């Protein structure tokens, strides 16, 4: 095979045995790779009703055909499993170096099954696979774990691991790779912890064979040059990283503030990318061979918050910052470092603390329960709570279950800003209506990484859409969801892909991306076939959700979004007009009542 190795590594943690198997070439093409392959295997092998922490749940790491190629940003992997946070599907995406090294082991995908009796880590050096004891690593943070493992294996290897949060089955635990990069959402780190799997270490030199090596090299250079032209013009992503976004969302009145009680934050100037660049930026830190280089290496000098690491990204500034009413950049950066070191998703962690802050200010919970005051704006309290969540220490044990369960426990559902029990990312959908529909229908629960129509509604890419309008948003969201399923299955980054390998003339259509896939695999995808494959992936995920009991009845948003009008800013007076968009969306998807029709499933080869 070209592009794909066509090989899957299966690691049974019950028996301690690893085996390699080949993938059916038809499945390879029909599901593309990455997220697509992973859901095909998960749906075939795991009962969607399984307890996410049962040994019967499986944890899948999957690269795509463009991973470890010259395709710009061709360095992503997906972690797919049943989510303990949403009770439905998790598919979390990460970059860094790990994805390329994983693919260079000669395998496209790893499937972890069962549960080890004692803590272990897995060391994959091409065809040599060892399951080694990890008792000495249990309890250690991500940085310590990574350093020790590089010493025990190969200094040039790459590590993905969990921190204490994953060990303690915190529902917002992540899998960190290369110390600072996260497969962040939906509690994938807790599933890894439930399997007693502390880390996966990879090393190899097996680049995939490409169908047209020279053509791929030339086209990659051409695409990289297009990125270079934008960077020369002054790319905000290059200059400020994603941290430039708070000023944008605040201007549009959709920056989550004090647990989404409003979308305008008075302290935005203190926590934006300009402040970060002036005060704490050390250097850019790209993922492997990325021409955009949006990552930031930072260091904080202030004694109280001293530290060094990557971030904060926009999502972290919104969740641990404005959503908690925090305008102290040093403190929120420190909270970000702790999340990375302890292995926590900054979005769900920040929003769960924000929900608790609202409950505190309402007088529903007090110092007796929390052990300290917890008002909005208390940056030190945020740092304290982050650590308590990771160790399930005191009140942290309640927060470790996420904001949905917290709000239920105290009988105030309005303080949980979630869809499918997963916390919103940093775009208040009352002022970005399409994002509301996206969150409500996203297969992984509220997420911007599953069809980010903020590209159009907020950032004007590839074309500008009015964020307050609901017109045509059903179709827009469906098209973006399919586009993102294609990107996630291909193994490249959305920051590159949306702008450079889709044509805007037909909304969002993968003309250039199909060419990349064909140069790599020789599989001769037309753009229509590529999108149909993505639609197949999306529908199969939807069927898994329905099987898991997270079907159409869960296509909704928390009550605040539907019933509490935005109090001020450009979106003042608006709620999310979900019903009208959802009706169009079901029609576009051919999902009568939210269930894929037999004709749809049949046309995709799913029945």
């Amino acid at each position, binding site marked *: 095979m070209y592009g794909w190795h066509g090989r899957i590594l299966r690691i049974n943690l019950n028996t301690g045995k690893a085996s390699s198997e080949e993938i059916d070439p038809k499945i390879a093409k029909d599901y593309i790779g990455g997220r697509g392959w992973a859901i095909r295997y998960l749906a075939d092998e795991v009962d969607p009703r399984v307890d996410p922490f049962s040994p019967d749940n499986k944890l899948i790491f999957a690269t795509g055909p463009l991973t470890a190629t010259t395709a710009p940003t061709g360095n992503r992997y997906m972690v797919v499993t049943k989510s303990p946070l949403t009770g439905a599907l998790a598919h979390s995406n990460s970059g860094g170096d790990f994805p390329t090294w994983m693919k260079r082991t000669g395998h496209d995908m790893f499937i972890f099954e069962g549960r080890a009796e004692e803590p272990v880590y897995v060391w994959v050096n091409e065809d040599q696979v060892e399951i080694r004891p990890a008792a000495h690593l249990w309890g250690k943070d991500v940085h310590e774990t990574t350093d020790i493992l590089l010493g025990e294996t190969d200094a040039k290897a790459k590590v993905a691991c969990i921190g204490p949060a994953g060990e303690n089955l915190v529902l917002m635990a992540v899998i960190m790779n290369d110390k600072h990069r996260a497969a962040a959402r939906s509690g994938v780190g807790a599933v890894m912890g439930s399997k007693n799997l502390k880390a996966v270490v990879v090393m190899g030199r097996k680049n995939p064979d490409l169908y047209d090596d020279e053509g791929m090299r030339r086209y990659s250079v051409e695409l990289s040059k297009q990125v270079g032209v934008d960077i020369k013009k002054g790319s905000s992503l290059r200059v400020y990283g994603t941290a430039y976004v708070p000023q944008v969302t605040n*201007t549009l009145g959709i920056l989550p503030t004090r647990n989404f009680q409003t979308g305008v934050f008075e302290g935005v100037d203190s926590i934006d990318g300009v402040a970060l660049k002036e005060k704490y930026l050390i250097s850019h830190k790209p993922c492997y061979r990325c021409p955009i280089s949006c990552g930031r290496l930072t260091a904080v000098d202030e004694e109280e918050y001293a530290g060094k690491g990557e971030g904060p990204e926009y999502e972290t500034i919104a969740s641990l910052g404005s959503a908690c009413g925090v305008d102290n950049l040093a403190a929120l950066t420190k909270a970000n470092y702790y999340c990375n070191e302890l292995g926590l998703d900054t979005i769900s962690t920040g929003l769960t603390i924000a929900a608790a802050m609202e409950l505190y200010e309402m007088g529903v919970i007090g110092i007796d329960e929390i052990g300290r005051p917890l008002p909005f704006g208390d940056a030190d309290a945020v740092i304290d709570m982050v650590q308590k969540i990771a160790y399930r220490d005191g009140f942290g044990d309640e927060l470790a279950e996420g904001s949905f369960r917290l709000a239920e426990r105290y009988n105030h559902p309005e303080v949980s800003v979630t869809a499918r029990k997963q916390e919103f990312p940093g775009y208040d959908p009352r002022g970005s209506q399409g994002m509301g529909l996206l969150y409500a229908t996203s297969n992984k629960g509220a997420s911007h990484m599953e069809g980010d129509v903020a590209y159009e509604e907020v950032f004007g*890419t590839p074309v500008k859409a009015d964020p307050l309008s609901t017109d045509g948003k059903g179709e827009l969201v469906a098209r973006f969801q399919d586009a993102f399923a294609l990107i996630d299955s291909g193994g490249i980054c*959305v920051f590159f892909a949306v702008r450079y390998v889709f044509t805007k003339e037909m909304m969002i259509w993968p003309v250039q991306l199909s060419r990349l896939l064909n140069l790599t695999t020789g599989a001769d995808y037309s753009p229509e076939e590529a999108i149909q494959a993505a639609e197949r992936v999306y529908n199969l995920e939807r069927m898994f959700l329905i099987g898991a009991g997270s079907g159409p009845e869960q296509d909704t948003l928390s009550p605040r979004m539907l019933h509490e009008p935005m109090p001020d800013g450009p979106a003042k007076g608006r709620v999310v007009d979900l019903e009208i968009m959802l009706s169009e969306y079901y029609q576009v998807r051919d999902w009568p009542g939210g269930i894929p029709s037999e004709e749809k499933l049949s046309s995709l080869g799913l029945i």
Partner: protein
Amino acid sequence: MIVRVKLIATYREHLPPGTNGNSTEVDVPPGHTVGEVLTPFNIPMDDSSVIVLNGLTVPLDTVVVEGDTVAAFSAIAGG
């Protein structure tokens, strides 16, 4: 009449030298449009820019009034 112009991220460099923060006030005659307010700042007036009036999507020929804020930023990827 006074209108505020806010230029975000890399567009800050289009503000007059010495501007503190990301916005400045301009004095424009009545009847000025969003596009005319931005003209002196040399912002690309095509689809490579996102331009909003008081945070709202409007046509560039929308007439501004006293106290309005016109904001612009580069139309590239999100977070």
